[in-house]
């Protein structure tokens, strides 16, 4: 079946090479963009993902923004702290120390609860005192050191970094895990507020008028900028896929037009148009598969040289799915040139 397809491509290496190169570059762009989008998207959510939560309760007035939520002991009385749920207390702040200044998300937690057990240390240990912090690995890359004393919060409170953790980003900011009792002081609110929310593996419901419950998906989408960012990237990627399909179709169309005379000769010799259509189809599949494979390799190589500050994440199932999507869409694009093949009249060959 591929007798014609392969030989044609071998002979016209440059022509088919160009097509493959263009498709490779477009799909490379798709993969890099997806990796960047995914990387950025993950910077919003790695901490929440690490907590393994399914739902969140916070004050109604915070409108889904956990770091704006203030809960009193009364509000929290309805939600027990146990194996499946934990209190968290969030506030954005600037961490300062040894000439470094970084925006962080302070996350106050209780020792040995659901959240603190979810922390994956890369260096150091968990906090044992209320003046100790476990911070995101990102901050280590920025120059913060183990044992370093830093100032944090509205009152420039002193803390000591005792550990670094991976997967600790919340809404793009690196997380600094500290003692939940220090939170009101760091945030600069009255200490009648004791936490910003309750996270749970179970599905929580609002038990008073003061609070509201969110599913994980609702909660993430309420994160400032999160859904806008994701839909922007999604549209960019979808448009790129559509463009690549159009490019493939145009190429195949031109290649087919150039071969009409050849195809007419083959039809005269009794070669069915089905064979010629399958020939174009198998060439398309060869072009798409090799271009997609090349671009994946290229994207992975590029990801090795891109600085680590740039968030990138290669989601293998997503890459496979996108790659498959490209191959399938490109193959659909080859249906247009096939209409030309079906219409080729072998009579044109005779009587020159």
């Amino acid at each position, binding site marked *: 079946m591929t007798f014609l397809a392969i030989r044609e491509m071998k002979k016209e290496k440059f022509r088919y090479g160009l097509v493959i190169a263009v498709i490779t570059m477009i799909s490379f762009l798709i993969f890099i963009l997806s990796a960047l989008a995914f990387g950025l998207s993950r910077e919003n959510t790695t901490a929440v993902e690490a907590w393994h939560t399914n739902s969140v309760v916070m004050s109604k007035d915070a409108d889904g923004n956990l770091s704006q939520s203030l809960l009193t002991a009364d509000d929290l009385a309805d939600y027990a702290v146990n194996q499946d749920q934990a209190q968290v207390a969030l506030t954005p702040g600037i961490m300062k120390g040894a000439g470094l200044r970084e925006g962080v998300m302070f996350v106050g937690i209780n020792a040995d609860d659901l959240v603190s057990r979810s922390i994956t240390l890369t260096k150091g240990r968990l906090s044992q005192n209320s003046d100790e912090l476990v911070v995101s690995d990102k901050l280590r890359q920025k120059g913060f050191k183990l044992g370093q004393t830093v100032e944090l919060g509205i009152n420039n409170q002193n803390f000591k970094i005792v550990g670094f953790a991976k997967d600790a980003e919340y809404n793009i900011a690196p997380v600094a895990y500290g003692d939940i009792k220090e939170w009101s002081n760091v945030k600069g609110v009255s200490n009648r507020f004791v936490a910003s929310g309750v996270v749970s593996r179970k599905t929580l419901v609002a038990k008073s008028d003061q609070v509201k419950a969110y599913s994980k998906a609702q909660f993430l989408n309420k994160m400032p900028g999160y859904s806008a960012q994701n839909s922007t990237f999604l549209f960019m990627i979808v448009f790129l896929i559509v463009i690549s399909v159009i490019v493939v179709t145009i190429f195949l169309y031109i290649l087919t037009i150039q071969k009409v005379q050849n195809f007419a*000769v083959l039809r005269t010799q009794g070669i069915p148009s089905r064979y010629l259509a399958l020939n174009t189809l198998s060439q398309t599949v060869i072009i798409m598969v090799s271009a997609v494979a090349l671009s994946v390799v290229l994207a992975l190589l590029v990801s090795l040289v891109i600085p680590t500050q740039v968030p990138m994440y290669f989601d293998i199932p997503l890459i496979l799915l996108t790659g498959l999507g490209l191959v399938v869409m490109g193959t659909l694009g080859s249906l247009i040139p096939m209409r030309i093949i079906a219409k080729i009249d072998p009579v044109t060959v005779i009587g*020159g």
Partner: protein
Amino acid sequence: MTLLELQHIQKSYQEGLKSKVALKDISFGIESGEYVAIMGESGAGKTTLLNIMATLDKPTSGKIELNGTDLKSLSENEAAHFRRKELGFVFQNFDLLDTFNNRDNIFLPLVLSKVPEKEMQARLTGLAEQLEITDLLDRYPSEVSGGQKQRVAAARALITQPELILADEPTGALDSHSSAQLLELFDQVNQAGQTILMVTHSALTASYSKRTLFIKDGIIYHQLNRGELSQKEYLDKISASLNSIINGGSVN
């Protein structure tokens, strides 16, 4: 045995509101092993006739049978299969595929019929020697001369061992030396039993055949048999016939 049989073939086309008659009434038969040329000026209906015999077109009325198969009743797919199995084509412009080397051009029809590689090679070896193209097999059509291309095209037509070779102005794009070479080759394969039907407007080309049919205005109005004549003598006979036609004289 009659291989090809045409009875009262008529073909008309719709041109705007008028219908144009390309073939009025054509009847003839070709025996297995014959070498027949159909002569005529352009517009005489030769191409239409060739298309019908090649199953690329269907007559408006009349009967056409090749080897017992009614060509009118074939569907498009059946016709394609029939062409591949029973017919070999040699075209004026060779029509080899530039993207294939000569060997693959020759193999292509066999590949489609799923002939084993070994058998393809075996068939080609003898054929290539006979056609003197053994050294050209690994070259591309663009790298060989017109005469050589036409010999490769002939090999492509012959390798499927067709019942009938249809040649459309096979010498039309060749110089006189290459023409003579190709026609001698046709003569050889015909002597080996291959039935050949060619369509041409050249008296010289037709003079290599064993029988010549003259077509004009959609009918066969004359035919000549070569008999025991040499090619040169037969050429004179064909030329004389053509002259008398042009001069308006009757022929018989």
